[in-house]
């Protein structure tokens, strides 16, 4: 079981590292995400909190989050409704695209 998890991780890592070419082009599936995640200061309601920034977020983390939302192990009704419709390939493309959007430089 653990070996399988490790192998899956390795396979995923490989597929994520070979995808920068298509990460630069915006996947169609990202359009829906940007309805909330592409608006600065956009708020989730009930409860009210800012929708998280995803530009520059780790692709692996986003992928893990999308899977957890789809499986309902991470609770959020809107994210579940969206994630459950996505194929594994779409989840990976979305994750890679957001990571590739870069981060603000740190002054150090």
């Amino acid at each position, binding site marked *: 079981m653990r070996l399988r998890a490790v192998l899956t991780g390795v396979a995923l*890592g490989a597929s994520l590292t070979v995808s920068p070419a298509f990460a630069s082009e915006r996947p169609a599936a990202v359009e829906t995400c*940007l309805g909330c*995640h*592409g*608006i*600065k*200061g956009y708020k989730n309601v009930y*409860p009210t*909190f*800012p*929708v*998280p*920034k*995803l*530009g*520059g*977020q*780790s*692709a*692996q*983390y986003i992928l*893990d989050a999308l899977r957890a939302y789809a499986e309902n*192990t*991470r*609770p959020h009704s809107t994210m579940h409704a969206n994630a459950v419709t996505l194929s594994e390939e779409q989840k990976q493309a979305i994750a890679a695209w*957001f990571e590739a*959007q*870069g*981060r*603000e*430089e*740190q*002054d*150090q």
Partner: protein
Amino acid sequence: MKIANRSILAVTAAGLLLVGTAQAGDPELGRTKAAPCAACHGEDGMGTAPNFPVLAGQYAGYLVHVLKQYRSGERENALMAPWVAELSDADIADLAAYYAAMQGLVVPEL
């Protein structure tokens, strides 16, 4: 009885005021409190491994929401649970303010 009601009102009003200002954390206090977080999330908030999220530049209000979800158990996570169990609301606000003040995550423009 009237006086008691008035006291309850006053206490409730004070409580509401506190709730209203609860999210204004102190990033300098947050820096000290974040020492254990750095092992996974990095000194720079960028994460030390791909499965650990970047926190630098994230909205404070989102970080507060997430930390409280971990603390209540609404969001289950074996790695995070022990770290947040003893955090006060003030601790959470300070940590959130600290990471939010860093340069990092961006909102992709359409």
